């Protein structure tokens, strides 16, 4: 029983990180209808800057710089590429982001050379024991940070002007434009936000506790797990992204323990396929809802 509780806690911690990434996908998808395949490279940009500056700035300063850089990188992709290709088909734009992803990933990996550094200094590799449970500190911190950020996001999404504008635009671009909503600002904010969330996520991903591996190609591979999270939740549902992230985290943790570590990665995709068979638009994805 203790093992089970331990797995659930650690799984939720991982799930919180996937949720942050999946939420980023969904925000970008809602704002621009583009599936951003460059999300993994945003993770690497943030992580690389933490690694490169943490000796000079100290971990907290480097972490902030990493988050800001990932956000700015996302904004640049939107302003320089996606926005300029206005009128292009969204599938072409998705392919464009794959190109960005390859370039950025290769460059970061080249710069890292033989290093695969851990970047979660303050909390990594210091498990907590309580009530007979061993919980990884990284996962616990990730769970708390994830809960706070996700709650804050939903409050903003529900109540702020940006949130109303964003939802209006996601639902009907023309009607939103006719209301005087400045689509370009809403979209820019969405990419910034998604980039920042990726920057936060990487602080937990390239750690001893989370993956046992430092920053590198492997981190990019982990970021890709957020795709099934977003898809099984429903690509256009923010709540779905969070639930999807948690489902993926739990699936990974439980299958690694009870089946095998090797199986845990494919288990995630199996769960996604099973869910999609029964709910083709994901758990919370919307099918058309209108009354004419």
């Amino acid at each position, binding site marked *: 029983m203790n093992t089970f509780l331990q797995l659930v806690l650690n799984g939720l911690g991982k799930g919180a990180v996937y949720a942050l990434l999946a939420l980023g996908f969904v925000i970008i998808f809602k704002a621009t209808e583009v599936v951003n395949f460059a999300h993994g490279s945003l993770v690497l940009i943030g992580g690389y800057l933490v690694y490169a500056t943490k000796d000079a700035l100290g971990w907290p300063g480097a972490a902030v710089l990493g988050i800001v850089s990932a956000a700015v990188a996302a904004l640049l992709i939107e302003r320089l590429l996606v926005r300029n290709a206005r009128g292009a088909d969204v599938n072409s734009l998705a392919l464009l982001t794959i190109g960005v992803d390859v370039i950025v990933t290769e460059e970061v990996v080249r710069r890292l050379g033989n290093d695969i550094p851990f970047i979660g200094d303050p909390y990594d590799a210091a498990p907590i024991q309580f009530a007979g449970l061993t919980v990884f500190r990284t996962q616990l911190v990730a769970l708390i940070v994830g809960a706070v950020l996700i709650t804050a996001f939903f409050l903003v999404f529900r109540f702020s002007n940006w949130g109303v504008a964003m939802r209006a635009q996601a639902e009907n671009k023309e009607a939103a434009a006719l*209301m005087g909503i400045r689509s370009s600002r809403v979209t820019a904010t969405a990419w910034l936000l998604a980039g920042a969330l990726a920057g936060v996520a990487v602080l937990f991903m390239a750690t001893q506790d989370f993956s046992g591996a430092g920053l590198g190609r492997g981190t990019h591979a982990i970021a890709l797990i957020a795709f099934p999270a977003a898809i099984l939740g429903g690509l256009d549902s923010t709540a779905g992204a969070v639930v999807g992230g948690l489902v993926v985290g739990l699936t990974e943790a439980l299958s690694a323990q009870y089946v095998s570590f090797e199986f845990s990665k494919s288990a995630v995709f199996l769960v996604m396929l099973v869910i999609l068979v029964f709910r083709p638009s994901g758990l919370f994805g919307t099918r058309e809802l209108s009354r004419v």
Partner: protein
Amino acid sequence: MLSVRGLEVRYGRSVTALEEIDLDVGPDGVLAVLGGNGAGKSTLLRAVSGTLRLHGGAVAAGEIRFRDERIDRLDPAEIVRRGVVAVPEGRQVFARMTVEENLRAGGLGARSAAVRTAARARVAELFPVLAERATQRAGLLSGGEQQMLAIGRALMSGPDLLLLDEPSLGLAPQMVGRIARIVGEIHAQGTAVVLVEQNATMALEVADTAVVLEVGRVALAGPAAELAASDDVQRLYLGGHAESEEQAEAEAAFARQHRRTLSRWAG
């Protein structure tokens, strides 16, 4: 207040949807734009509200001025901030958002918080039903209520000119009468209106001037009362009553001759 001169609109390279359009709306006027399917009525509203590009169209020639300032090159959000707001065809409320959130979205283009507060009071007075349904999803409202929400939402930014695209479409006759009264009231409160309609009876009752578009050109223009009385408009749009069999046949022949061609563009 609104002046359109020599306007030509194209979709893509070859499809011309509007040609040589001239029209004016005074500060306290109601202009009715009549015409059949594909005549270019919606295209005209898209040109004024700046949403042509979302439909693959562009202004090819001519200009649109609002208060002596050219608006045909501005994006829709800027045009809203100048005081011109459109209610699109088919209402297009944000179905998944609540009535309250729809109204809030409408207020995002207001020039100041004071304008928004005044607009909110005006909408509450014009459409008490929206307050009753504030927390309901807009997609679950009836067609008439959705139309009221679409108009209320547009009023939230305090426009000086309201563009309405077929507000009576698909509504029960009683509701059409109600929408007409509301348009009259909005006008009486000092907002100029451009009313695009296929329901000519309703539009000519509310409007003071009118234009009839046919295949992208202004076919007739003048005071609404004069147009309502004109034989052509009676025959084509108001369903004039024949007094004898010969007259009915003559009118049928006239209608055949003047049958409007179906256009290739979504007008």
